């Protein structure tokens, strides 16, 4: 993201949100029953999403995903093993690999979906992990607001082109 396009207000909101999340989840660590560590999950998620990620959120995604996916450990190990084995430069290379199995792709999609939507689990039992920090808003952040986090008065108009003029 082009940081010059982030307002001071948005930055303050962002850090406030991180602090609030940290406060909400004191001492959240990887579920003891999980073999996967926070570091391992953060490393894998960083590769799968291609983004610099918040470790606190990562720890919460790990706990939530583990709750909804009994074999998450196995899936994390298999994914990381496949990535290490091929030494992919990025996710596009991973997706282009001829020997990428449907199972591995489904595991990757599960983790990517969580990070992008900010939600883990099917609608009836879904848990929200992040709202404004859900990754789906990253590509559109310079153009349109996350609902309820508006840019302030007089920030739109016929001649204010989203992402171009202020």
């Amino acid at each position, binding site marked *: 993201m082009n940081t010059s396009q982030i307002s001071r207000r948005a930055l303050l909101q962002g850090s406030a949100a991180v602090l609030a999340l940290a406060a909400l989840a004191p001492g959240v660590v990887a579920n003891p029953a999980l073999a996967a560590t926070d570091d391992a999950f953060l490393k894998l998620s960083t590769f*799968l999403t*291609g983004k610099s990620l918040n470790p606190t959120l990562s720890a919460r995604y790990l706990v939530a995903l583990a709750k909804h996916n009994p074999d998450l450990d196995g899936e994390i190990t298999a994914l990381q093993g496949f990535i290490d084995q091929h030494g992919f430069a*990025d*996710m*596009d290379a*991973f*997706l282009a690999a001829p020997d990428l199995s449907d199972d591995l*792709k489904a595991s*990757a*999609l599960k983790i*990517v*979906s969580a990070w*992008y*939507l900010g*939600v883990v*689990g099917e*609608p*009836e039992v*879904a*848990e*929200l992990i992040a*709202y*404004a920090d859900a990754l*789906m*808003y*990253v*590509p*559109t952040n310079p*153009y*349109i*607001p*996350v*609902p*309820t*986090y*508006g*840019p*302030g*008065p007089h*920030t*739109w*108009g*016929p*001649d*204010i*082109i*989203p*992402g171009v003029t202020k």
Partner: protein
Amino acid sequence: MATDFDADVIVIGSGVMGGIIAARVAKAGKKVIILESGPRVKRRDIVETYRNAPVKLSLANAKLQGVGSPYPSLPHSPSTYGDYLQQMGPVKFNTSYLRVVGGTTWHFGSALWRMIPNDFALKSKYGRGRDWPISYDELEPWYLQAEMDIGVTGTDGQDESGKGGAPYPPRSAPYPMPGLKPSHFMKKLMDRLTPGGFNPVLEASARATVPWKKRPICAGNNACNPVCPIAAKYDGSMSIDEAEGYGAQVLDNAVVHKIDVGDDRQISAIWYKRPDGSEHKLTAARYVMAAYAIESPKIMLLNKQKNAPNGIANSSDQVGRNLMDHTGISMNVMAKEDYWPGQGPTQLLTYVNNRDGDFRRDFPQYKIKVRNTTPVLSTTQKLLAKGLMGSELDAEIKRQSARSLNWAIDFETLPNPNNRVTPHPEKKDALGIPVPAIWYDVDDYWHAGKEQGLKDLYRIAELLDADVVSVDEGFQNRQHIMGTTIMGDDPADSVVDRDCRTHDHKNMFIAGTSVMPSSSCVNPTLTGAALSVRIAAEILKEI
């Protein structure tokens, strides 16, 4: 004052209609009690609940109703998000009004249109539906007062009949606040569609554009539904606050279930239940039913008794009948250039070329609108469902969010006595009060409108050089409930008279859109509010 009664005026329902009446009557020094079936809510709680909700409900994703809503659902006052409303007819009437202090305007998009003169004379001009007993000219001064009470922003000088002509309908004064600026997305659409003969109309709304009473100006949060996080948009709780400031008393979690009629055929008392089941009685010189167009008729029909054998105000058998909406259709298109819907508030850009004319003999008037709601969530869900990841995912989120446009049409519907609300014969809420049962269908007139509207939608897609992704002809509910206590001069076929007073009970008024004899195609809140201002004046003449 109120020596023989508990209050001068009892208002049942704490939404915009009840709020306006309560504030005006209390301001005149009268004792007012307002009863609300649901609880008080705090804006910050609704905002937080919304942000934290895993499923984001909005009018645009009504399919997920029942999964969650930021507004409370309590056993004694169940939310309409869920299975509270019982669908009995061929067309689902899945509306969602709010049962909290302040009412449904908490989540309304806040469009505040006036009807046009011919909307009041549909039968005599075009041979359809019913005429109103009053004209636009008679209502005009009350429209203006309602616009002041609510705090309306609007663009002066527009031909709101969509003909691209002189300012219309006639106004005796400008809008209270200047109109919202159209976003870039709207300007770009206007540039493409005006050459095709589509005349844009920017809707009047309840979003402050200058500081207004306690409201700040709109900050473009794009969350008008479900809640304005900064209270720039009017909602009924603001009128209730005003009423309380003048001494009105609000009883929340007070579910009115019983209405007594005396031998003089006047309302003699109302009863409400607390969540614990206890019953309480109140009396007043005047009673105002303002519980919106499903709860009001339900309560009235539940109260059959010696002096009101068909139920309250129901000697005509019209209570609960003539249920109307602006039942609609929609079309999603993918444009070939960036528009970026979602900038600014969820203000709509509208086209009402077919708002008035001889065509109304053959098909209904309608309003075409394009939603200015950020499509990021729905877009991302679709892309992930297709398995997109990597750089393609980000690129497609950006491209499709910038280019996906949702067009929708709201059609006028006609009053049909078969479309009705009744108390369900078996199903009850936690207090033992029957839940609403709804029977609804659309007629050939509506279908003729749909055919006409579809042509316009495809023409719009063509002018935009956009690909049509989907068209939904599935009777979309527009959350504009009207007609269930219809107004008329003849007590044999209407429930209230031209002053919104029930024909049967001289000390009872009905406030809100349920009295409207015709629906037009525009959002009915302002019309209901104008009639409510008029009710307050009528009551103050008498007490």
